[in-house]
């Protein structure tokens, strides 16, 4: 929580329909998880945008550091053999 007396911040994730992942949509303030879900209903699903809501207190999220983004994600860049198109196969071979 911040130095002020405001309610903690919660991140809101919404599943828009069955079969899809919950997706981050924004944040809001609430005293507890129950209130966060109720507020998220009113703030983020006024037009039937969701069928399920997850909330998590923002302080509980750990994030990768954008300053070391290159070191973090570059190792995957030169491993093109992880993709199916890397392999040279005859045209006669269908559906593989």
């Amino acid at each position, binding site marked *: 929580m*911040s*130095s*002020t*007396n*405001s*309610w903690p*911040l919660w991140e809101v994730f919404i599943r828009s329909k069955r079969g899809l992942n919950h997706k981050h949509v*924004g*944040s*809001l*303030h609430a*005293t*507890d998880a129950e*209130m966060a879900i109720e507020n998220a209903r*009113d*703030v983020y699903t*006024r*037009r039937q945008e969701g069928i399920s809501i997850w909330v998590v207190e923002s302080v509980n999220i750990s*994030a990768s*550091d*954008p*300053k070391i983004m290159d070191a973090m994600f570059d190792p995957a860049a030169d491993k093109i053999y992880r993709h199916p198109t890397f392999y040279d196969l005859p045209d006669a071979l269908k559906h593989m």
Partner: protein
Amino acid sequence: MTTLDFETQFFARINKDEKIEPKDWMPEKYRKTLIRQMAQHAHSEIVGMLPEANYISRAPSLKRKAALLAKIQDEAGHGLYLYCAAETLGAERDNLMDELHTGKAKYSSIFNYPTLNWADMGAIGWLVDGAAILNQVPLCKCSFGPYARAMVRVCKEESFHQRQGFEILLALCNGTVEQKQMAQDSINRWWWPSMMMFGPSDSESTNSEYSMKTKIKRFSNDELRQRFVDASKPQADILGLTLPDPLLKYNEATKHWDYGQIDWDEFNNVVQGNGPCNKIRVKARKDAWDNGKWVRDAATAYSEKQRQRKLETKQLA
């Protein structure tokens, strides 16, 4: 990397039309400009609920009342999306509120004009929301990710606001002579303040250059104002209403509508706090905040009690 490297990388990203996200390195000026603009935008949504609130109990039919309630609820939501976008840059909600209440932060001047009768709900929807949409659509492509994403949601929701306003005016214009006069009177009062919503002329606008350079802003105030005039004139014709500008004239050479001089003295006066409703708007917000304190305190106390109970139950088990 040095600050200079970070800055080069930052502008390279901007120039490639990549988004800046909250934890990325950014110049202090970019952060400050965004916090100020997003907070001002959020405050405008929240204060913007006030001129309409008076008409919830005075709407002429259940349909109009339901639409007005939904519109005002959207505005609360839009304010919240924007506060949350500002908070991704480290702004504190309580401080933002405090700045609104002490007058340190501004909000759109349009909300310092009074709503005198039901026709004003139509004029606000058509002109004020229409102008807001023209301002907001380019912000969907703003360089700062959270602001752009909030704007996509806002724009999607706001198109009904303008349409319901236009429909209110259309009903009045198709009604009795007195009703049509009401609509015309309302347009007479709201046209020029709506024109001012795009801000000072490009030559006078102090923050514009940096905002354009960092792609927070994509079009200049005057460009957007021209679009507003060009869009509004044919719409006024459909209503059979006259826009209160004797100099309004189609320019064959530019293919735009030329318009008369905006009263910038009035604009500056309202921005500086001397509009017809500045004081009552801020007071209404401050009263709502102060009088709601016991509710916020009670909610905090309740949650704390629930937490304690859960702990005790766990210990017993």
